[in-house]
């Protein structure tokens, strides 16, 4: 009967099932993949882009693109992984035919496709391509110059904490949930 579904295979259990199958079959867990990222990419006054925030994510790669329109109003748009991948692939084509700015010397930001390829080549295109790109001295310099995320995060974080009125609860006297070992199960 269709509405009582069963597990057809461990694959239906998603990543948990795959991890468990590997334990049960005595195989090692699959090799660690490149960490996916959640990026905030901001357009500079010169029209070039830099990464202002970067967070590791367990979901797919994603980005918010912050741009200024003709009237100077800031707009934000969301970009999903397939759009990011399409741009990165387009830029990688240019790398291969020698026209990509990512492999030219220089600084001060790049176009959007170049910026995305520079910061997320590994998780979007795979390790082999990322490694070969990083082997290019110009690429690795450009990649580090477009990514301001680490600095801006920590500075912003400190400032907001100082003014913060946020409060934590559940102090040391929080009733331990467990009346015994079965938790809240009821």
């Amino acid at each position: 009967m269709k509405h009582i579904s069963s597990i057809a295979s461990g694959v239906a259990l998603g990543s948990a099932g795959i991890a468990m199958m590997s334990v049960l079959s005595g195989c090692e867990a699959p090799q660690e993949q490149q960490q996916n990222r959640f990026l905030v990419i901001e357009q500079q006054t010169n029209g070039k882009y830099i990464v202002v925030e970067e967070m590791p994510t367990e979901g797919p790669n994603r980005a918010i693109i912050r741009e200024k329109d003709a009237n100077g109003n800031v707009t934000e748009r969301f970009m999903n992984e397939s759009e990011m991948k399409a741009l990165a692939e387009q830029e990688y084509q240019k790398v291969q035919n020698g026209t990509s700015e990512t492999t030219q010397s220089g600084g001060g930001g790049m176009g959007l496709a170049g910026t995305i390829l520079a910061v997320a080549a590994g998780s979007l295109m795979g390790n082999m391509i990322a490694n070969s790109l990083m082997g290019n001295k110009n690429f690795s310099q450009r990649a580090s110059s477009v990514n301001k995320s680490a600095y801006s995060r920590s500075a912003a974080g400190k400032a907001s904490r100082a003014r913060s009125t946020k409060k934590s609860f559940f102090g040391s006297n929080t009733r331990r949930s467990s009346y015994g070992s079965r938790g809240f199960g009821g």
Partner: protein
Amino acid sequence: MINFVKINKLNDETLEEIGFTWHTDTDGTKYVSDELVQITQKEAEAYYEAGNELYDMFVEAAQYVIDNDLFFEIGIPFNLVDMIKKSWENDVHWHIYGRFDLAGGIDNQDIKLIEFNADTPTSLFETALLQWALLKENNMDENKQFNNLYEAIKDNFKRLITLDEDVSSFEENYDGWKILFSSVEGDDEEEATTKLLQQIATDAGFNTSFEYLQDVKFDEDGIFDSQDNEYEYWFKLYPWEDIGTDEPELATTLNTIMQKQKAIILNPAYTLLFQSKGILKILWDLFPNHPLLLETSFEPLNSLHVEKCVFGREGANTKILEANGNILEKTDGEYDNYKKVYQKYVDFPKDNLGKKYQAGVFFAYESCALSFRKGDEIMDNMSKFVGHIIS
């Protein structure tokens, strides 16, 4: 008699490797049985139908409580009422999952509702993964289990965005919103349960993170992790009634957060209406003599019955009473301050050692999985987990 299939157990080392560290109870006994309950397809169907029908009845009963302002009657802390109403009115407060505890369903016994763990159910890891792993380990057919829990919860996370049975528009409509998952530090079972839910949500396509309860930060503008990242959703494996009574300031803040639509809290506040055993009395009023229900009252019954606290968990503060009030069995605990309800006694299916079996039917948009607990007269925190197979 209940039919069983004897199986090879997973050893403790393998269990720990798959993240299941609570395999041994505090009295040294093993928490997971080395038998599976054998059920028929027809019995599986009946559990499935019962869960679906009961959920519809709970929704009707909750609406009745709200319309007639019966929160006090069923023991809801007053400072949660506003959040319960707000969450009830807007579908974005989507109920992710719950577990019905049922008597009967096997051994020719009728299915009867014992209670609905709608707010913070555990047994999730055991039901979704462990009982499947037991089939796998014993080279049994993986299709022969009523267990679609992982997929069902995954789809239900997607419904936070689609707000519809159809989840195909999730990718199109999901805009990067993040879910923060939290549990009490120092409790392996609750942490593993919460992290499994996090993993399911991640598989569904959400950005997620985990923070112990005491490290989560709150202000009127939202819910934040220790790094001050803001989250649109917060899943807490922590009872709503404890937030209401032990953390009243947090309850006020959460109410404001909900009012300003800064974050959505899961499971939603209205699940406390389902969780309160007081609603069992409302159900009996609305559906008298319904075949899935046991008579329940706010007064002792004139037959063998069970006294429970509206928010007691793990079988604590429970008494089995004769019609004349004579106590046959009782457990102590910390819930005695809560209001009492009285439910007609029903016997559970038993094995040849006299151990009793209670069914747990998980619900995530529809009934989606089954597992059993084995215990004594009052199912408590020493009860054992028993998987099943459909013959």
